[in-house]
């Protein structure tokens, strides 16, 4: 994950945050497992098939969905295609540069993609127009507008919200426009380990302080759909079990709050 623009974390902030964590609180006054308030605006881009702007604290991401007809992959002739792409816009953060995707943006895109794909959120079987020849291809493009930590969760929220409002432009193929078939709702919860504490939804400073990061994406039935560990630190087995418990509980609360 990107560091502070100059790569130097302030000693004062570090001691303030770690001191607060010992009291079971966060640097910005949140509880250890609390998420920042998210605001989701769907249909933010009227010309897209589906779109959503998500603001999570000061982190702001915009997801757009485009659905086109095209050829399926030869090994999966009977299912549609889903591709996810994340762009770190230079205006979001001083260290973000324009150009081809880098390690960070690929990681975010793949974790978001995995959560959506493995939860079977989109029934790709229903995206077939003509088996082996023509299927619907769903592009999810996510742009990071402002960066203040926890891009993975913000991007998952945005991608899921955008897909939920997306429609298939079937009228172009002689059919009738229809909403994208959406089933499960994956919700990702990212945690970082600071000292021995696990905190949810890290902001920029906490992300810099954390020794290790773990993202767990769950669906309503409690199944784990995606997991990603980042940074150089380590988690013990008990901590991973605790993190999974946290993510399914917090994920359920988020799903209730934003997707019901």
């Amino acid at each position, binding site marked *: 994950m990107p560091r502070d623009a*100059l790569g*130097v*974390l*302030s*000693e*004062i*902030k*570090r*001691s*303030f945050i770690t*001191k*607060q964590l010992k*009291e079971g*609180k966060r*640097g*910005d*006054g949140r509880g250890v497992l609390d998420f920042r308030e998210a605001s989701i605006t769907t249909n933010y881009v009227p010309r897209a098939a589906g779109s959503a702007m998500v603001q999570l604290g000061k982190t702001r991401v915009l997801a757009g969905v485009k659905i086109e007809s095209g050829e399926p992959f030869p090994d999966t002739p009977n299912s549609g295609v889903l591709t996810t792409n994340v762009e770190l816009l230079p205006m979001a953060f001083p260290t973000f540069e324009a150009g081809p995707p880098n390690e960070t943006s690929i990681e975010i895109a793949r974790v978001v993609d995995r959560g959506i794909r493995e939860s079977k959120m989109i029934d790709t079987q229903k995206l077939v127009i003509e088996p082996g020849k023509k299927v619907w291809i769903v592009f999810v493009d996510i742009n990071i507008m402002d960066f203040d930590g926890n891009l993975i969760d913000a991007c998952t929220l945005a991608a899921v919200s955008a897909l939920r409002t997306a429609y298939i432009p079937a009228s172009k193929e002689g059919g009738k426009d229809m909403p994208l078939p959406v089933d499960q709702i994956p919700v990702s919860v990212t945690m970082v380990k600071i000292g021995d504490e696990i905190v949810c939804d890290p902001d920029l400073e906490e992300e810099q302080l954390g020794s290790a990061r773990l993202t767990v994406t769950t669906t309503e039935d409690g199944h784990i759909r995606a997991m990603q560990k980042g940074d150089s630190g380590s988690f013990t087995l008990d901590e991973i079990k605790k993190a999974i418990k946290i993510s399914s509980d917090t994920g359920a609360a988020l799903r209730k709050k934003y997707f019901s």
Partner: protein
Amino acid sequence: MAEIKQIVMPGDLISEELGKPRNGVYKNSDGKYCSSYFGIIQKNEQGVDIVPFSGRYVPRRGDKVIGKVLEVGPSMWPIDINSTYNTLLHMNDTPWRTTSGDIKRFLGVGDYVYAKVMTLNEIKESWITLKDVGLRKLEGGHITSIPAPKVPRIIGKGGSMVNMIKDATNTRIVVGQNGLIWIDGTPEDVIEAIAAISIVEQEAHTVGLTDRMEKYLKERSVK
């Protein structure tokens, strides 16, 4: 919503009746005064200023700023003061008895100092000093930041705003001219003070902010 000050875009005409044009105003080819920033018009006795909504800190000699140590050299500390260039603090400009090569024990990477801009060159590269009353290494507390052009708003007329926040939240606050703010107190009070400062930052373009902040802080303290 409270009454807001007039917002201008770059190139917008500034009425000459407002007074002598000062910072952020230029004369276009027709001889008319225009704004060079996206910001608000600030009128005072000396003339009219454009206060931009955001931007980096432009150092001025004598300003007291808060800076973060980026590196430790043999005899200098490169310091980030949120300006276009990093500034330098030489070991001879500190109150400590330093010897070259052993300055790490006084200031390490990531430490903050409250320092004064000592010299400036034509392109605003600066050198800072710790040799003056009240200048020191900042220890404990917490740091928050706002865009440098909004610093006068946080301080208020004769320090009215910052003193009000200090009294209401029971904290010690040091405001650097470069937009970095150091706050010391109990963690709850510090978080209160940061919340108050962010309100001032977001509503810096409105009129009568001090009165509204007074009301806000009173309501908070009742709770």
